[in-house]
């Protein structure tokens, strides 16, 4: 099967701080790849590089076979094909839910308002948010806001979704409703690259799990193997800490 996205020896530093030290990763279409690892291991930076929110220092990234790290690439056109959801939701507070979701399809895809709205309402309906269409983000719970953020990304009909710790800012009782949405996306065949601390969820949903450590993918494989028989001592130690914290 064709790769939806492929990274070759991707490197990224912020000043003296080397965050990615050569990442090689391929995500096939309809795959769900979960990135796990301690805070600061480079998960978020990796996702931001794929979305071109950060420029890579070296290495190449291919989206559907086309190199997107080459000079002169139309970054806006690339980003329209990739949805990203952030830890802090980042909804636009001055817009209603419906306008949050329709802004990009109308302005970047040039959809007429009516069409953008019907596409948005269909998605809001599907994720139980139709009654919130005219609410403003500050009137929604964290879980609702994050679901709207996911819908906002989906409204662009992306070929790839990047999820950056999307449940980390949520109260524990609101995590489930967001994970449910992601499960549904996976079941629908969405290709996803997910940075997460939710190990149980990663184990359930991932076709492959990658353990990031100090800017490299130290170990990757099917979730069952990574979680039950990790080969690398560092992976073992990381998972041990997670188990001790009661999160697996």
């Amino acid at each position, binding site marked *: 099967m064709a790769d939806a996205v492929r990274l070759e020896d991707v490197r990224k530093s912020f000043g003296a701080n080397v965050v990615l030290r050569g990442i090689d990763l391929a995500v096939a279409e309809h795959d769900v790849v979960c990135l796990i690892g301690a805070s600061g291991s480079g998960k978020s930076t990796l996702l931001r590089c794929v979305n071109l929110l950060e420029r890579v220092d070296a290495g190449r990234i291919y989206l559907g076979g086309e190199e997107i790290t080459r000079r002169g690439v139309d970054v806006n056109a690339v980003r329209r094909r990739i949805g990203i959801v952030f830890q802090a939701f980042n909804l636009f507070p001055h817009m209603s839910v419906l306008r949050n979701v329709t802004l990009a399809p109308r302005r970047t895809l040039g959809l007429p308002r009516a069409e953008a709205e019907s596409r948005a309402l269909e998605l809001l309906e599907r994720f*139980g948010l139709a009654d919130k269409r005219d609410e403003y983000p500050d009137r*929604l719970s964290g879980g609702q806001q994050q679901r709207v953020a996911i819908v906002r990304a989906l409204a*662009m009909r992306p070929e790839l979704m990047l999820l950056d710790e999307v449940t980390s800012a949520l109260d524990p009782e609101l995590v489930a409703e967001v994970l449910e949405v992601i499960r549904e996306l996976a079941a629908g065949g969405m290709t996803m690259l997910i940075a997460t601390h939710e190990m149980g969820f990663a184990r359930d949903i991932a076709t492959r799990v990658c353990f990031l450590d100090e800017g490299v993918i130290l170990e990757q494989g099917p979730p069952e193997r990574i979680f039950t028989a990790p080969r690398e001592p560092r992976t073992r130690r990381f998972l041990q800490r997670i188990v001790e914290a009661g999160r697996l």
Partner: protein
Amino acid sequence: MASEGDRRADLEVAGRRSRLLGELRTGAGRNVAIAVASTTVVVVALGLAITHAPGWPEVRKTFFDGHVFTTSFPAIAHAFLLNVRIFLIAEAVILVVALALAVLRSLPGPVFFPLRALAALYADLARGVPTILVIALLGFGAPALGISWVPSSVVFWATVGLVLVYSGYVAEVYRAGIESVHPSQEAAARSLGLSRWQALRFVVLPQAIRRVVPPLLNDFIGLQKDTALVGTLGAIEAFNQSSIDTNATFNYTPYLAAAVLFVAITIPQARFTDWLVARGRRRREAGRLA
């Protein structure tokens, strides 16, 4: 999906609102009574101190002459229309010029350094030179050039001077607003494929402008008062008209009439600005709790 969570969030918001209103209602009556009493004491004390001053009879005659007030008022009010015209036109132009300056100054990257530096230099100059000097230099200097297609009206050039000066201030206000919008907002917009300009126009500026309306109105109040400076070039606006009346009657009451006109338009705006600030604070607090 998750309708339980939704319902709970709605209930929490409703409950919080009723608590807030309750707090406001209890104790409001007593606070009003105390405020009225203390204000009365201060006003009466001030009034007694002024009216018992040794020079009061003379001051009352030269500054508070009812007859001079009523006879000079119509002409001053008519001249005041020129002030109103000047500040309305200036405000409309300033809103656009200052926004352009602020956007220039917010451009990222080394390529735009010259533009940023120019915009910064402009802001420094506009805010550093006394307004009356800018108006005098332009009002006397520009028409003296004698270029046929350049307007020679002093009112035109004085208005240009006010626009130049106040655009410096208002640009800084806009810039503060732009910088107060968290970078993650722009990142979210760009990640959806919006261009830098679209992100600015649809996401950053609407939030920035909303936040700066109160300080912007404060600057406009300052501008409205400074339209009196146009009179120094000889244009017959409210201040100049009251000077003429004062010189003709040897009585300062016409100045008071002009002051009343300025206060009549600036105080409602000051109250409105305060109301906006208070509303903004209430909304932010409601948002934070939600």
